[in-house]
């Protein structure tokens, strides 16, 4: 079997290649797209296996060693994020296959839907390549470029639905993303000016407190926070995520916001962990608390299903930030493991939710929560997927979210900062509230009245269910991914970053 580097290259090259191919040969887009998704899954599998065997790895692109060249850095966290993207992306791709063929199948506005499919695949594959590149790269400026790819593709995908609201949301998203990139770029520039190097691992050995470092770090963080949509900066997220096409919503909420959070985790969790003061972590944690409360409160008030899910994303992102001070607090790996678990399970659960909501939308013709009673009768599988995903968002055992929250709770209690733990529990209860709002309607018996629309293809329903089940079982299977994380346990400790090939 080829080594990890080969698979890593595949992960970037294959989506790019198929993106271009599916653009040039538009007629085959819906063949190339799923093909790329499967290949990507295969490559991640290969990467995981060879990573488990041979451990962390550094790969010099162009053969240029560190100060000059760009390096891939493959470690446990990176592999897990890639795997998350691969699995969720595969499910979304399968879903999209059914979604677009269903919409094209309906006579109304066929050509328009065909156009959407034509552009969905290359855009999504480019987005995918951007995500993979981001997770693999260890170079701050290279990450800027991948962030741009991700952001631009995400914006285009958001606007793909063509609804005025979606376009407006996309415009706002784009402006925010511009601002975020700008801030990030300046941060990179300042750090480069200080230390003359762009590689994260190398940087972590050089950093020393100084005014320019603080400014650079503040700018990097601000840019990423904007892209991650942390609480006061979340305003752009709900309309964008709620108005996009269903597979796009799943991608945006499940995967795209994770990318910038992953970067924050890298920066705050390892690269600059040595120099950052604890108060900064507490600030982010406090904002996370705000996100949990505000997002959940808004989700409780929404009238439309997709808006509710989007606000729940805002709330769930808050959890990830609450984890940051706990990472700082915790000498052991528990808090880090918890964050990774939360990321993974949220990706699965949220994608599944949006996918199920998309099926419901297509079937019912609307997504007004108040009028969805009885949808279970016509869409049992999707309703089940939605509820299951919701349950895992609530952090019910044995979902991955539960194990994550459990670990964080333990850390916060052990460290004497119990308020973080209380916030997690409160957030779970609030999540239960908004999931209940939908679930209580979905599960009610009522004579079916939606059946005039065409049947939802099974692939759409089952891909959502599989993701939801995965999110639910993630807690039971948590051991193996976290072992993988520990295999590059150096992941989080700066000393281990210098694993040269």
């Amino acid at each position, binding site marked *: 079997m080829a080594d990890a580097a080969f698979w890593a290259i595949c992960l970037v090259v294959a989506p790019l290649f198929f993106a271009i191919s599916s653009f040039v040969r538009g007629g085959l887009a819906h063949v190339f797209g799923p093909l790329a998704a499967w290949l990507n899954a295969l490559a991640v599998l290969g990467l995981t296996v060879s990573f488990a065997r041979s451990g962390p790895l550094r790969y010099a692109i162009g053969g240029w060693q560190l100060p000059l060249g760009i390096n891939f850095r493959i470690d446990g966290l990176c592999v897990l994020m890639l795997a998350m993207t691969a699995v969720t992306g595969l499910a979304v791709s399968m879903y999209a296959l059914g979604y677009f063929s269903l919409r094209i199948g309906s006579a109304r506005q066929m050509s328009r839907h065909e156009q959407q499919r034509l552009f969905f695949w290359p855009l999504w594959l480019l987005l995918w390549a951007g995500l993979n590149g981001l997770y693999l790269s260890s170079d701050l400026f290279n990450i800027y470029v991948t962030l741009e790819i991700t952001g631009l593709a995400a914006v285009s995908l958001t606007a793909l639905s063509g609804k005025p609201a979606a376009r407006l949301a*996309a415009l706002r998203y784009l402006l925010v993303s*511009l*601002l975020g990139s*700008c801030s990030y770029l300046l941060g990179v520039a300042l750090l480069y*000016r200080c230390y003359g190097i762009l590689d994260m691992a190398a940087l972590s050995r050089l950093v020393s407190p100084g005014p320019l470092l603080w400014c650079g770090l503040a700018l990097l963080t601000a840019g990423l926070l904007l892209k991650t949509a942390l609480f006061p900066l979340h305003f752009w997220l709900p309309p964008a995520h709620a108005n996009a096409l269903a597979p796009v919503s799943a991608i945006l909420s499940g995967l795209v916001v994770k990318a910038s959070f992953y970067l924050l985790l890298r920066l705050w969790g390892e690269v600059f962990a040595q120099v950052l003061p604890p108060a900064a972590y507490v600030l982010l944690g406090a904002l996370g608390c705000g996100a949990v409360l505000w997002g959940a409160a808004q989700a409780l008030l929404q009238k439309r299903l997709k808006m509710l899910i989007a606000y729940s994303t805002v709330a769930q992102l808050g959890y990830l930030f609450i984890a940051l001070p706990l990472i700082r607090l915790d000498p052991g790996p528990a808090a880090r493991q918890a964050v990774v678990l939360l990321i993974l399970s949220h990706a699965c659960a949220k994608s599944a939710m949006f996918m199920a909501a998309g099926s419901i939308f297509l079937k019912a013709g609307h997504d007004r929560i108040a009028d969805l009673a009885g949808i279970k009768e016509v869409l049992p599988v999707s309703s089940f997927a939605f509820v299951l995903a919701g349950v895992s968002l609530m952090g019910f055992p044995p979902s991955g979210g539960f194990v994550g929250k459990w670990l964080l709770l333990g850390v916060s209690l052990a460290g004497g900062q119990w308020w973080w733990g209380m916030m997690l529990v409160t957030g779970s209860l609030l999540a239960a509230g908004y999931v209940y709002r939908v679930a209580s309607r979905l599960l009610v018996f009522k004579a079916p009245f939606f059946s005039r629309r065409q049947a939802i293809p099974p692939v759409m329903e089952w891909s959502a269910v599989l993701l939801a089940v995965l999110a639910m079982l993630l807690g039971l299977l948590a051991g193996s991914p976290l072992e993988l994380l520990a295999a590059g346990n150096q992941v989080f400790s700066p000393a281990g970053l210098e694993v040269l090939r």
Partner: protein
Amino acid sequence: MNTLLFYDFSGLALLAIGLHGLIRSSHPLRKILAANLMTSGVFLIMISGARGTGQTMIDPVPHAMVLTGIVVSVSTTAVALVLVCLVQETTNRALLWQKRKREKWGRTDG
């Protein structure tokens, strides 16, 4: 005080003005202009840092980064402009209308 710091400060000023404009103006075209100003400011800071004090050697890496940045920025600008036009054409919201002569920092006086 060396002359390079002029350009640093100039870049900072552009950045600040751009940020102010981005937040303050209501018209999307103006916002996009402001964002472009901001990126220009960042580029200026990057390039002026490439020629460290008393160094004869110019660091080409920031130059390459700025080149990349310029291309990225024109790409995003293009998409943003098309989006603005589409939003304008398909929503019920008046973005620009009328009074464009009077708008200043997004306020419409009178």
